[in-house]
């Protein structure tokens, strides 16, 4: 390899990454500094964390969740991890190994929950049994179990690794449908309420590409392969569409999402409160719900009665739809 001609914007040393949205290149040290600065800015701007918070990080074994855990520990927060075994075949096995290795190498505490072991189902089976899209069954299960683990463990804040691309893609989808309920809830901080822990997203100012680069530079091994049953979902299509725009006009994703948060979200604030205040309590598990029994308990009741479904069966169905 012949060294790149580009220089770090800060120190003029050899660059390792180009960031078109900043119209700049950075060396490894100053790239890491940029990422830390963006996380601190998000935490401060949106009042995400206090120094004495007990933090639980939802960890998948992928780049974003390991990066946010790494960043928070580096910044001096006390943070444990939570890994949920989704039962998506070898993909889940490998993901768990990355999460465990990260925690073990740093002496961090990782809580593990197994859907099959503790609730009698896995994501492929839940998708088949409930006729849900796999990502829907997965998201529903994770959201419920994240909340439960945080509340049961006495954590004051639940952290997820949602990055700028994730948030921009969800915003794009919600805007295409003008789904006001979802738009009103799409905030980087959701305050604690009865039955819900405080939830924060410290990576909202950083892109997916930047988070992958963080892991590479920091030597963090993570699950690079895509979830086999997420292939072809709408979320990925929205990300691809936004990246076409980003390449033509760098900074578009950040402007789209961050300006929504600054200019539009305040106008929807009243709508968000009304939606949460209308919740009751699940007759089976006590979680907040709009019905008598919450969606998670209904999913568990249906999925655990179904014979286990191999990943390949869900995979071929998903591929056929693309």
């Amino acid at each position: 390899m012949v060294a790149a001609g580009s220089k770090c914007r800060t120190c003029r040393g050899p660059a390792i990454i180009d960031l078109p949205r900043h119209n700049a290149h950075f060396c490894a040290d100053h790239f890491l500094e940029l990422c830390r600065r963006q996380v601190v800015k998000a935490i401060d701007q949106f009042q995400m964390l206090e120094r004495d918070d007990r933090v639980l990080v939802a960890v998948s074994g992928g780049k974003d969740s390991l990066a946010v855990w790494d960043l928070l520990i580096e910044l001096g927060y006390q943070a444990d991890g939570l890994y949920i075994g989704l039962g998506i075949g070898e993909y889940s096995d490998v993901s768990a190994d990355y999460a465990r290795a990260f925690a073990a190498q740093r002496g961090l505490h990782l809580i593990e929950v197994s859907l099959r072991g503790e609730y009698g189902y896995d994501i492929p089976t839940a998708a088949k049994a409930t006729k849900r899209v796999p990502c829907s069954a997965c998201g529903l299960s994770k959201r419920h179990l994240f909340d439960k683990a945080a509340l049961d463990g006495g954590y004051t804040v639940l952290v997820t690794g949602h990055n700028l691309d994730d948030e921009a893609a969800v915003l794009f989808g919600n805007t295409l449908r003008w789904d006001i309920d979802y738009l009103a809830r799409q905030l980087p901080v959701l305050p604690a309420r009865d039955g819900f822990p405080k939830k924060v997203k410290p990576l909202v100012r950083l892109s997916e590409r930047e988070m992958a680069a963080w892991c590479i530079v920091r030597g963090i091994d993570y699950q690079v392969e895509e979830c086999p049953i997420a292939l072809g979902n709408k979320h990925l299509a929205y990300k691809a569409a936004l990246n076409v725009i980003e390449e033509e006009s760098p900074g578009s994703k950040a402007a789209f999402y961050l300006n929504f948060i600054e200019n539009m979200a305040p106008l929807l604030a009243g709508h968000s409160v009304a939606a949460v205040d209308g919740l009751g309590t699940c007759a089976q598990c006590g979680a907040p719900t709009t019905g008598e029994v919450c969606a998670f308990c209904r999913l568990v009741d249906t999925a655990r009665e179904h014979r286990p479904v191999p990943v390949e069966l869900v995979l071929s169905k998903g591929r056929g739809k693309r």
Partner: protein
Amino acid sequence: MKVLLRNPRRELDVPGSRQVLALLAELQLSRESHLVICNGTLVPGDAHLAADDVVEIRPVISGGA
């Protein structure tokens, strides 16, 4: 050069040298959704990859909604 691609994992032999951005364009891969690692080190778009380099083009997009 040997080029490792992911999702699905596969390897290509690309003859000659290339600039990183030229290689991505040739393979029709988005700069915004990939990083390039040359001989174990992250490299920017204007780096020149030599014929004997081992290159990984790593996708950075993940799909959970």
